[in-house]
């Protein structure tokens, strides 16, 4: 048995025990911690906003005792003017202002929305009627369709267009700030 003078590459006992204790402690510590998981997908928040926006339009479209819904009354009374970013709703357009206040009462405070009226007049027209900003990347869109019949009370704009029964879509694009 020769004890060579070159002891390189050997681990002495005390160092060995200390090293193994440190490694073991590390492994035990890591194994017994719970990894805190948060859903990283933003889809869950989108779904929430989609549900709320859908509920908002559904509630505004409810039919009351007189057989009308607020949504239909407001769209039927729309005079065809557009909204700009300067004025959130078309100027001097009471029915869209009423629609905007009803939507605001139901939507969350920290969400913004744009509303567009989509109809067919020799091609599909999408007219913005409520503009509060540029939709962000995570916006959701919900739609509600109403039907205008020739006997319904409506503005001159719709009467001139004719084509009854006319299907008009109100599209709401919502996003969180």
């Amino acid at each position, binding site marked *: 048995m020769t004890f060579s003078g070159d002891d390189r590459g050997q681990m002495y006992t005390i160092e060995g025990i200390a090293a193994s204790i*440190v490694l073991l402690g590390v492994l035990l510590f890591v194994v017994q911690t719970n990894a805190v998981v948060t859903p990283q997908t933003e889809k869950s928040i989108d779904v929430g906003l989609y*549900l709320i926006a859908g509920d908002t339009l559904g509630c505004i479209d*409810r039919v009351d005792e007189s057989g009308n819904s607020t949504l239909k009354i407001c769209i039927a009374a729309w005079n065809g003017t557009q909204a700009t970013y300067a004025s959130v709703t078309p100027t001097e357009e009471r029915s869209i202002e009423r629609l905007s206040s009803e939507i605001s009462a*139901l*939507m969350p405070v920290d969400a913004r929305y744009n509303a567009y009226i989509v109809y067919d007049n020799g091609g599909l027209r999408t007219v913005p009627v409520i503009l509060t900003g540029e939709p962000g990347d995570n916006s959701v869109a919900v739609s509600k369709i109403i039907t205008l019949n020739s006997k319904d009370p409506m503005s001159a704009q719709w009467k001139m267009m004719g084509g009854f029964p006319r299907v008009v879509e109100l599209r709401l694009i919502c996003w969180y700030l």
Partner: protein
Amino acid sequence: MRSLMLKDDRGQSNLDFIFGLGVFLVTFTYAVSFVPGMFAAVQPDAIDLTSVAYRTTAILAEDPGWRIYDGPDGTPAGSEGWESYDVSELARVGLAVDKTKPNVLSLDKIVALNNHSLINYSVARDKVGLNGSVIYDMNLYVTMNHTVMGQNLEMLKVKSPNYTNFNVEALERRVMIDTGKQLYVDCYYPGTPDYDLQVNVNGISPMDKHNVTLRIFNTSGTIDFVAWSSTYNGFLMQTWTNGMDYIVLINGMPVSLPAAFTAGDIVEVVVYNDALLRDTYGNLITGIICVHEADHSSIFPGQQIFYTSDPQFKLRSVCYPGTMKLEVWSNDVFRG
């Protein structure tokens, strides 16, 4: 033996190398174990709870509920009006007014569920469909934004007594809460005005336990009492007291009489169902509810208004916007 005692006692592995390796292992293992967290949405736990939460809120907001009772000939029958009947007849809890109006909740059903859950949380949880092959627990909150009073009212709070593990799914729905029918008296009607508002309660069903509410707007004046008369323009029997038999609300807040109001205020005169006169069989005695103006100024429509069938003044549902929030989790150990 002497050769074992070396001058160079350095070990090959430094202790600080081991500590450094330990720190590196901790960080690396933590980072690696964080990767499955990025796919948490597709783990069985998260998918399961989201669909259960959506299904339960859909049942609560869009379904009117169901009760099962024994029909007159013994065969089972059912109806949607579970709120006026015993818990034992309750088959499914739903808060909607009826199937044709999704997301419009009935205040009667919310109050009934509140009472049921006060008695027994398990009943409320079971009848919503959360006690099946897997048992879930829930917290359910409904708040109403009373736009006339200008405050948020908590209408329903069902809290589970069971503990929450860390996986809880919350879902929020927007609803309209139907607080009942009110007679809309628009006093701008240019008829022959009178200083007494006279409402004939003929036509109210004896089984109807709701209060009679008159909503007066578009006028200004002072109300000093509400009385009963057996005929139109007849003698006023002032047997009712404010606070006990009726209350007067101006903009949602109860007021003491005499109370003045202006054209921008909403005045609600609520006559409690118990105060209405009934005969020995429980049927309503037909008569007139009179709202009297203190200064005898003619501000009210000057004709007899029929509560249930007036061609001009209609009964309308008063709906306020609200929020329904549901939290769902499961302590069931046998879940996937």
